[in-house]
């Protein structure tokens, strides 16, 4: 077990957003968090890596309470891609190099540069390396954010709609790449994703959120026509095509 979320509660001012959220994730698993807009998914991720401080409950990484770790320790364990962020003026290489921040003492080492170089290559971002990130397309920028989180070499990756701006090819390529290194390096991935079919293709486990709570959690079996009707209020048909579950809205 690598990540355990225990009875997490959070509210903005007095508006409750998370209520007694608990789940456990094992090493190397890919988790998809599903739910309607405003269900509290992004808030959940931010509570996991202490961007927001939860009102109650606790998050554990390898049995260590995150709330007791210094922020830099959290950063060495958890990488994060936000849903949206303002774009500052720095080059792609510098932006990804920033992912090495938790490890940098005073100056970057050749090892840091090497790690960034490799990630840029894997995500086909090499040709942009000296381009400013405020001059990138939405999808290119999103890949830079993912590259930065990977440069962090975390044990857990929190991705908040990492593929929302990517084209079909990039969606598949990027998610496959993330899945591959998750397998190779034993990284656990928690990703918020709205495209159910993409989620089914990528994730091993699913968390469905409804009304600030977890509606259901588990393997592919929790994605049912009834569950989707309950959570999204949409009628769908689920078919098996080539042994893969496909969700078709009707």
């Amino acid at each position, binding site marked *: 077990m690598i990540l355990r979320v225990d009875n997490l509660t959070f509210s903005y001012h007095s508006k409750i957003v998370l209520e007694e959220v608990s789940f456990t994730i094992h090493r190397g698993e890919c988790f998809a968090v599903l739910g309607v807009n405003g269900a509290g998914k992004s808030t959940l991720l*931010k509570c996991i*890596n*202490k*961007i927001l401080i939860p009102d109650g409950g606790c998050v554990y990484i390898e049995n260590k309470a995150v709330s007791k770790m*210094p*922020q*830099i*320790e*959290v*950063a*060495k364990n*958890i*990488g*994060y891609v*936000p849903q949206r*962020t*303002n774009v*500052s*003026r*720095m*080059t792609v*290489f*510098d*932006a990804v190099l*920033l*992912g090495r*921040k*938790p490890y*940098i003492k*005073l100056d970057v080492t050749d090892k840091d*540069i*090497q790690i*960034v*170089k490799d990630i*840029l*290559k894997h995500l086909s971002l*090499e040709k942009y*390396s*000296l381009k400013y990130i405020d001059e990138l397309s939405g999808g290119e920028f999103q890949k830079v954010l993912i590259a930065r989180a990977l440069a*962090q070499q975390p044990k857990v990756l929190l991705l908040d709609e990492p593929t929302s701006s990517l084209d079909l090819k990039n969606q598949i390529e990027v998610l496959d790449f993330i899945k591959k290194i998750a397998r190779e390096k034993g990284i656990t991935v928690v990703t918020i994703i709205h495209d159910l079919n993409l989620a089914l293709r990528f994730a091993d486990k699913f968390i469905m959120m409804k009304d600030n709570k977890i509606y259901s959690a588990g393997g592919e079996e929790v994605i049912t026509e009834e569950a989707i009707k309950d959570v999204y209020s949409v009628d769908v048909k689920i078919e098996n095509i080539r042994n893969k579950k496909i969700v078709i809205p009707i």
Partner: protein
Amino acid sequence: MQVDIIYKKYIGKKKYVFIMLLLILFILSFIALNLGASKITLIDLIGFFSGINNQDANLIFWRIRFPRILAAIIAGAALSISGCIMQNNLKNPLASPFTLGISNAAAFGANVAIILLDAGSTQSSTKDAVIINNPYIVSVCAFIFSIFATLIVIKLAKLKFFSKEAIVLSGVALGSLFTAATTLIQYFAQDYQVAVAVFWTFGDLGRVSYKEVLIMAVATLISYTYFYVHKWDYNALEASDDIAKSLGVDVEKLRLRSLLLVSFATATSVSFIGVIGFIGLIAPHIMRRIIGSDLRFLMPTSAILGSVLLLLSDTLARTIISPIILPVGVLTSFLGAPLFLYLLIKGEARR
């Protein structure tokens, strides 16, 4: 070509800019040392090195011009680094070392010393007869009020978890409060006291001797060391608060300490030389255009550019209508305002 090699080249170029600026500063210091109301140049000093004791040259170089040049270099760097950190921390290109209201608070402190504690006097009606009897009381008062203002701003900002808006707003509010208080005590003061107080407010580098230069240097160095060690935290902050947190930066603590150290360095300079505007705003601004917002390079280059600009202004102030020496604060504002507008308009056009 390999990405890492391209990147290292790109970084190398930025280091070049730093070296160039250093060279410019060096040459400028040399020129400044040779210019002045008395027509003494370094040639006269050669006698000093070869053993002939030229008292006048000696005095003018080592007691008047040299400490003044050092003061320009240090104060310029202090203001510019402070501006650089403020602009980064508040993500506001208009932030400066005085955004927290330090200049107004320091001026108020000086007014308190000069008017209420009677630390100033005039001897006759000529121009440079304005004398500050006890410059240390004035400096100490200015410093105390600057730090006091900073602490209030920080206290207020803390209520809002150091949000950028909270810091800027409380700085502005406090600044105008101190200005109002200054006006109030000036209203009840004697004419000569007001004259001395106003004179103090124009930043002027002629007031310092080696001792003050040393204190300013130490304060600046302490702050700069902290900033330089945390350059990557500032770079992360450049991305966004959330990203900085996810990269392990304790954002609130960093802001708190940065504000304190910026205030410390700025207040020290301001207490000794008065308010010198625009350097802390414009030097980081120009440098950001040239070198980008990477604090690794922006901090050192801004520091040197601040020194260059202040030294240049001061040299002009000393020589432009020699033998009268203008207060450099007046000159930086005169030069700074149009330069700033130029940058603003040029920047707009490019977008």
